[in-house]
């Protein structure tokens, strides 16, 4: 089965017409088979889930195949309680599928070396992206070919990547959730490695037809300003609250946020 693949710089969708580099480097469709998922799950995907290929088929390929529960006679009527009528996707497994797709995108589309894709351990005190990517020359060339103005940037030594997978819904909200993970990485680097602030990748997968993979690359439009803004919060929690209430305040320092 395949996914439509779209490339974004910030929240701006770059098309092959406006950005010819997209035509060269980003295939319009990404074919991902269940057997490939089953095999790739041997590395990509932070949860240890067996038979990921079967889950991929059940969760993504088919629709309406979830086992149904029998209706229990006399179940109390009311607005609060409703009997569950079918089983549903497990969020961890869905998340694992998103991470596998992101791993595939990192290798195929972004040209990251196999050995440069590192899963990250989740923190208890902060958000954490799913992966840290060691950029390759090919990756940086892909970015510059797609958006030549990026050639003037000094890219960082590591890029965080966050994967999200959803059935559907408002994709921008999903990406904002992912961006929250990236901002945590930026916050905790703003003193020790400010050159990493503002750079990151989000891979957002949608299961509902038409299935889609959105690859969003974030780069700073004003890195020094973003670093200053982040350092104005003495506690991560305060910054997190700020991002939750007004993400645009951070976004103002990112390219194509609006």
């Amino acid at each position, binding site marked *: *089965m*395949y996914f*439509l*693949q*779209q490339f974004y710089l910030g929240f701006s*969708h770059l*098309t*092959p*017409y406006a950005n010819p580099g997209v*035509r060269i480097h980003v*295939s*319009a*469709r*990404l*074919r*991902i*088979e*269940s*057997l*490939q998922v*089953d*095999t*790739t799950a*041997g*590395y*990509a995907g932070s949860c240890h889930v067996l038979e990921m290929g079967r889950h991929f088929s059940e969760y993504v*390929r088919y629709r309406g195949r979830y086992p149904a529960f029998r209706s229990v006679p006399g179940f109390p009527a009311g607005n609060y309680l409703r009997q569950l009528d079918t089983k549903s996707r497990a969020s961890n497994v869905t998340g694992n599928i998103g991470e596998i797709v992101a*791993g*595939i995108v990192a*290798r*195929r*589309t972004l040209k990251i*070396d*196999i*050995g440069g*894709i590192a899963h990250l351990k989740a923190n208890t005190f902060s958000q954490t992206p799913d992966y840290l990517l060691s950029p390759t020359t090919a990756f940086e060339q892909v970015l510059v070919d797609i958006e030549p103005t990026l050639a003037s940037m000094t890219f960082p030594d590591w890029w965080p990547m966050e994967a999200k997978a959803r059935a559907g819904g408002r994709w921008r909200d999903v990406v904002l959730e992912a961006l929250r993970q990236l901002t945590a990485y930026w916050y905790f680097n703003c003193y020790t490695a400010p050159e990493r602030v503002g750079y990151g990748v989000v891979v957002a997968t949608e299961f509902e*037809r*038409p*299935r889609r993979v959105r690859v969003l690359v974030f780069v700073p439009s004003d890195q020094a300003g973003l670093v200053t803004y982040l350092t104005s919060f003495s506690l991560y929690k305060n910054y997190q609250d700020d991002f939750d209430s007004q993400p645009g305040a951070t976004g103002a320092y990112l390219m194509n946020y609006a």
Partner: protein
Amino acid sequence: MREVTLRQRQGSGWEPLALLGEAGAQIEAHLADKDAPPDELLVTTVHLRGVLWQVDRREFELLAYLVDYGWEEALYRCAVMAAKAGHGTILESEEDDITESEEVHQGELFQLVEHEPTMDGGPGLSWEEDADGLQCVVTVGDLGLIKIKGTWYGRDMPQDARELVSRFRAILDRIESPGGANIDLRVPPGESDQR
């Protein structure tokens, strides 16, 4: 692991297929830095390393990975040759279930001027082959990973785990070296390194 070693020393108590089942737990322990999987279940080549697992009574799988990332491109080329060398049946892509009429509505993606949207099918492939009583589905996938699922279909199970290991090893060896001296490639000229 200690128990396995003890059984091996005792000789009479070693039941190879049971050993495979136990090895699963031992491999998990290995991942937690406690023990190593038994050498009998490790299959290594120059560029690949794999471990055999028992999935069910008749189902086994070899999970293998690249130990030399520099060999990644060669792996995908060799996999195509290995599939042909093993007289395997290369599996077709899963049927697409997004109809063209649905795509017509994806104007933002596929404007009318783009008649043939590009497709990235990935570098890997899957094939089926019969390894002398073990029906295998071999998948070489993204990130240089390999999974060989084998189902033993004979009436009697093999009496020695090594009978299974050798079948998986033969496939991995063929992927490593599809042009090996003992391999009859039967690949028409010009097709050996192209999909």
